[in-house]
């Protein structure tokens, strides 16, 4: 069990920089998600933490000890690979017990520990089987077994559910989270699936192009994205972004959206020129009295809610409405935004402007 601290971690492959100066801290016992699109550097970050890649610069502390240049075998961590990487020439039991044999544990003790772990995972009847014929779910359990049998300081998982069917993935995700809650071990989990990250993680780091875009608990990241990238990446459908030219000064509580005044949380910093208003679909409401107008172009029925797409002077806006609200394509209606939930971004670098609402999340720096 351990706290993991990453400080200014950087990795270059020749001329390509995979990770630029990442800094974040994973608390003891946390289920921590590294989230981002493919090629964003999340897997490279994890591999550096595990000792499978050497960082170009920066420090990694596991349990207070600096390990950036240490061998993987000296870090006392376990790794679950996307393709499971079970040793194909060994049985299920052989695979799970393999890390123990490297520590010189006796056959009898190994067997007892393997049995104990197999019972936790419900695979005690298949210990003598070769791994070749197993279903992907059972392979996943064997891979987990091989990880937990050592009682390592931390678990690192690289898209461990990526190779499973969608249906089964849900089930395994729950199983994994339940296992973590029971064992309480620090877990770092890489995924490109924002739903998976929101569903399972205690904390999330969102990465893009080798840069940490935001770091925090899922709810904060969803409500108060620090950058336009996060706003776009998280949520389904993602946050609506309305680009407009304008000026805001620190202390303003209203912006001018194409001639329509829109209330926003009190800003703490100013900007001018290319600005972006971010609003989650569930914070858009149809309000005939509202000044800001849009034309309904489509409605997508989702059971209890529906996603209504409207054409506005600032592009398409999606609204999540109750299903019983009747909308007809072609009708023009007013759009109201929930003022307490809005974020204004600088269009140039995509950074969110600090406001009374998000300064707790974004900090004061």
């Amino acid at each position, binding site marked *: 069990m351990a706290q993991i601290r990453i400080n200014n971690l950087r990795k270059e492959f020749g001329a390509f920089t995979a990770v630029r100066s990442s800094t974040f801290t994973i608390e003891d016992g946390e289920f921590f998600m590294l989230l981002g699109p493919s090629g964003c550097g999340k897997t490279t970050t994890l591999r550096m933490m*595990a*000792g*499978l890649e050497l960082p170009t610069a920066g420090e990694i502390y596991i349990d207070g000890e600096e390990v950036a240049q240490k*061998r*993987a*075998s000296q870090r006392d*961590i*376990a*790794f679950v*690979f996307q*393709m499971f*990487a079970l*040793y*194909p*020439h060994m049985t299920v039991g052989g695979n799970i017990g*393999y*890390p123990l044999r*490297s*520590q010189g544990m006796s056959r009898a003790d190994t067997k007892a520990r393997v049995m104990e772990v197999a019972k936790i995972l419900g695979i005690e009847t298949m210990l003598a089987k070769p791994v070749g014929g197993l279903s992907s779910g059972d392979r996943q359990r064997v891979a987990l077994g*091989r990880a937990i049998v*050592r009682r390592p300081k931390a678990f690192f998982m690289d898209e461990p559910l990526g190779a499973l069917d969608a249906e089964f993935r849900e089930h395994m995700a729950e199983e994994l989270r339940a296992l973590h809650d029971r064992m309480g071990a620090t877990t770092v989990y890489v995924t490109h699936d924002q739903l998976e990250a929101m569903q399972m993680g205690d904390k999330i780091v969102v990465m893009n192009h080798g840069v940490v875009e935001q770091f925090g608990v899922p709810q904060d990241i969803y409500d108060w994205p620090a950058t336009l990238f996060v706003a776009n990446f998280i949520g389904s459908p993602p946050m609506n972004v309305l680009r407009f030219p304008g000026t805001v000064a620190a202390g303003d509580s209203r912006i001018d959206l194409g001639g329509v005044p829109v209330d926003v949380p009190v800003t703490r910093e100013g900007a001018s020129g290319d600005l972006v208003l971010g609003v989650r679909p569930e914070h858009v409401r149809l309000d005939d009295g509202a000044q800001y107008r849009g034309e309904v172009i489509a409605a997508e029925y989702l059971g209890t809610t529906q996603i209504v797409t409207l054409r506005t002077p600032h592009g398409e806006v999606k609204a999540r409405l109750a299903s019983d609200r009747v909308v007809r394509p072609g009708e023009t209606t007013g759009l109201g935004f929930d003022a307490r939930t809005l974020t204004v971004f600088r269009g140039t670098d995509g950074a969110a402007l600090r406001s009374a609402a998000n300064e707790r999340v974004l900090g004061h720096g």
Partner: protein
Amino acid sequence: MSSFSVTEPSPTQKWVAGTLVALYALVALMPLVWIIATGFKSPSDAIAYPPKLLFEPTVEGYVNLFTTQTRATPEALAANPPETWYERIVAENNQTIVGPSRFGERFLNSVIIGFGSTFLSVFLGTFAAYAFSRFKIPLKDDLLFFILSTRMMPPIAVAIPIFLMYRAAGLSDTHAGMILLYTAVNLSLSVWLLKGFIDEIPVEYEEAALIDGYTRFQAFWKVVLPQAATGIASTAIFCLIFAWNEYAFAVLLTSGQAQTAPPFIPTIIGIGGQDWPAVAAGATLFLLPVMVFTILLRKHLLRGITFGAVRK
């Protein structure tokens, strides 16, 4: 259920395919059958025309292969009657055995040199291939091309320099010299073949072993090697077949000490007339080790050939 299937051949198709395979096998195996049969013929049956398909089998050829004989008069034979079964066979042709032939030691030379060089080629090849497959090596592609380039000419093209070098280095007609030579020729093949096999093994297996607390060498030994067994077996067969059958260098570089079977077998013809059954017997025995080796490893060989194509 439809009676037509894309993947399952019809009875007619099976019958045609079976006949073709049988015909091909007949043609391909004919020389082999001929050699094996000739080994059990008497010298007169062996040169009979038209060839005898049915004949009275005899082990005369094998006896002649393993022994050295000299002509003896009937009186001398009567005075000194043959005691063993093989002496009686020789006596029928008015011959008597004066000692063993050199076939046994030549055969042993072939075994030592063939298997020795195969072992070395595969051993060194596996390490080299692993390094080429897994590590960043400066000028890797150039090195690999350079290794392959040694295969771009027939090895015998360098016969003269090798002959002179071997004479100067004292390697002529030694087991070590022949093992070294065949290893050098086979190594390029084994590095390239094995690199292909090791490339196919996902690197995650080693990474898992590294994290599980093993060193790089242990990961190689316990995780990579068992999975490369297929490739190693097929590579070993290819290396053995080359070293076992090699004739030109063996003629050139060996004579007394380290002569292998291929240059020796034809010399049997000269001993006491054209003794075709003895030559055929030698060729038959010579076939056996490679055949046994291949049959033992044939499961690996077949998997080796399709390796990479269908791997999941």
